[in-house]
């Protein structure tokens, strides 16, 4: 079983650009960590605003991206065979997920979630921090993964 480095939120924030850190800090102070990750992922600009152009289908899909990220994160962290190759890479590199692993996680999950890695990074660090506080074993013991 892999582990997540025991880092403070400020240490995880070093993965972020200054503007991302600023926005995520505001979201965390308002919603707490997990809900902040969700709000970041499903935000679509200011409320009561009609936009002019682009793919409007994505707006309907927005809430699904969060549950997709959570499902895939759980599979990756908790040893689901869908991520065997990625899990081996983490275990070979020292068993521990830390700041240096965040970009790789975002790149692995991006095509499955259907969002760019850059938008996933802030949400991933918040989930990693929450999970690390609980411990991977304890976290995964609450998950019942389905082999799809």
């Amino acid at each position, binding site marked *: 079983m892999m582990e997540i480095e025991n880092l403070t939120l400020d240490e995880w924030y070093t993965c972020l650009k200054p503007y991302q850190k600023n926005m995520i800090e505001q979201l965390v102070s308002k919603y707490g960590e997990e809900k902040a990750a969700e709000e970041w992922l499903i935000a679509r600009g200011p409320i009561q605003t009609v936009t*002019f*152009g682009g793919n409007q289908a*994505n707006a309907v899909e927005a809430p699904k991206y969060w549950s997709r990220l959570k499902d895939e994160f759980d599979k990756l962290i908790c040893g689901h065979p869908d991520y065997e190759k990625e899990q081996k890479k983490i275990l070979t590199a020292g068993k521990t997920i830390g700041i240096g692993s965040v970009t790789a996680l975002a790149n692995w999950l991006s095509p499955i979630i259907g969002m760019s890695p850059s938008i996933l990074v802030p949400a991933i660090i918040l989930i990693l921090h929450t999970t690390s506080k609980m411990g991977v074993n304890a976290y995964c013991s609450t998950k019942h993964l389905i082999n799809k």
Partner: protein
Amino acid sequence: MFNFTQITLLIGKLNKSTGAIDMLGTGFLVSKEGKVVTARHVVGNEVNDLYVLMPHIPSINAYQDVTDLSCKPVAVNVEDVNPITDLCILKTNLSFNGILPPLESLDNILVGEKIGMFGFPHCVMGRRVLTYQETEIGAKMLLETSGVKSKYATINIQTRPGQSGSLVFNLRNGAIIGLLIGTYAPSSGVIIAGINPHELNQTSYCISANYIKEML
């Protein structure tokens, strides 16, 4: 003044069933290394098959042939997304040798001052006409997304689908002060011929360009 016609670009996505590029909205070049900004909702969560279309006219005074469907697409990657401010940075392999207008902020313009805007109204319906509009700043606002407030301006002009991502510049010095996002339209509970009547207002929103600068 700056040559805005050469930095305002169409954003498109390859339609694999037709082999053509579907036009999604407007964007503009913000770095000499080929970074282009647009509204995030223009590309949505797409990461594949995105393109910018190179300028099709040398000057805004050229007659734009709407029957000419040829284009010069350049592939782009999504480099950064800010879902709170609805901004997206795309990266091309283009390099730009001209002088780019500076990215400033709505802090640098007063209510009532004149602005110019370049964009592609109706491009989502297949019409490619780079269009220039002039108006003035009507108000400055703080709008909220998920509890985070950002700086916006009301501009006193009605805009059309396809103009999201248009550059908004200060007529006094040519500096880019904003990017067109949309318009105020709360749900009315009534849709007439597919239109929410609240969308038929005469103003639009732009977001302050300082939020673009911090993403570069």
